[in-house]
């Protein structure tokens, strides 16, 4: 399918979710998207992708349960939280489906209709994702080989040696990338 049509469908479906708050409608949408994931045979990747996000869904439900209309621990708040978490789930699943079924160059083509400077920024961001992932993996392995214990209860102590080089390297890379783009005649303004 044309990446532009896919992007348009993604935008339309996501916007629909903002306006329709009907629980049954959202459930139907969730089931439909899940069926599509099975159709495309992306269930394994999907589980890997969505698993860490369950933490966010639980926070959304808890926050709504205990802060809804100023009532603490209300059923209405819980229901509202579940609805919000479900909408978030569908939204993330839609994004996953779009990314899974579109090649990286297809993703770039989907932004073709935008002004060049904007589409370039989006392409740059997309291209950065696998590179940052690879870099993170390298740093993790380097720190593991130096005996860093990821099971330590002190999160700050555990992740500091990973985040610092990751940020430093990413910033350094961005700076050089900007220079390289300018050297090939790119003007952001």
């Amino acid at each position: 399918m044309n990446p532009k049509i896919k992007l348009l469908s993604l935008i339309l479906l996501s916007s629909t979710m903002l306006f329709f708050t009907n629980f049954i409608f959202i459930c139907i949408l969730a089931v439909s998207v899940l069926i599509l994931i099975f159709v495309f045979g992306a269930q394994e990747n999907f589980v890997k992708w969505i698993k860490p996000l369950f933490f966010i869904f639980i926070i959304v439900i808890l926050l709504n349960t205990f802060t809804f209309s100023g009532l603490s621990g209300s059923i209405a708040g819980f229901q509202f939280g579940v609805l919000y978490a479900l909408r978030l789930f569908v939204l993330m699943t839609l994004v996953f489906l779009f990314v899974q079924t579109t090649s990286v160059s297809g993703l770039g083509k989907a932004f073709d209709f935008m002004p060049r400077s904007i589409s370039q920024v989006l392409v740059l961001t997309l291209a950065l994702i696998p590179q940052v992932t690879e870099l993170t993996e390298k740093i993790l392995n380097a720190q593991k080989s130096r005996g860093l214990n990821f099971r330590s209860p002190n999160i700050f102590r555990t992740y500091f040696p990973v985040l610092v080089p990751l940020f430093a390297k990413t910033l350094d890379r961005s700076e050089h990338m900007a220079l390289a783009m300018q050297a090939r005649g790119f003007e952001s303004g």
Partner: protein
Amino acid sequence: MAIEIKNLNFSYPGKTVLRNISLDIEKADFVGITGSTGSGKTTLAYCFNGLIPNSIRGRFSGSVRVAGLDTRKSKIPELAKRVGLVFQDPDWQLFSLSVREEISFGLLNLKMENIEKRVRESIKMVGLEGYEETEPHKISQGQKQKLCIASVLAMEPDIIVLDEPTSQLDYRSTMNIYRILERLNKEGKTVIVIEHNTDLLDAYANKVVLLENGRIAKYGPAEQVFSDKKLLEKLGVKVPEVYKK
């Protein structure tokens, strides 16, 4: 004259990097720039295409003229048509989603004509046929370096500057890159290479700039610079094998 530098000084805040550099590079020269780490080689390369002083801030004095244009008074895109700069690490500059898009990036920026033809030709020149739709991130390091060179070649600049183009490459890829550069030089392009491997410079460059702590320690024909073994040893630069005897 391809590049004329007169009394160039450049300092980053709190650190002087280039000191009183005067250098003339003729058209169709193959110039090697070498020196120990931190001697100012990369900073000098940034002066060739106007990134210094137009984009990288610091204290700049003296003058750099590239193909007759004063880099202080010219915009970077204007200079980019004349000077192509290949950065040291390909991962710093490759960001497009396919090899084809990566090469056409500069051409679109400079609003050049015959983009498809130029892309095709530069891909052929570096031997990346068949990789047009591949993501740059997924090709080998040698191919990435070739892609960086192709993306500069497509812009057809008269001067090509390469910052340590073979630092991450194996022997075969290194020789491939240098053969491409040699061919371009024979076609009339001015090639400037920053390189630690003095054996390569001795084999390919006709002139060599030896930098020491931001100053030119020696500039001249390769054999003249490399035969000064005492100076090379003093600066921590490897004496090429043929001069060791």
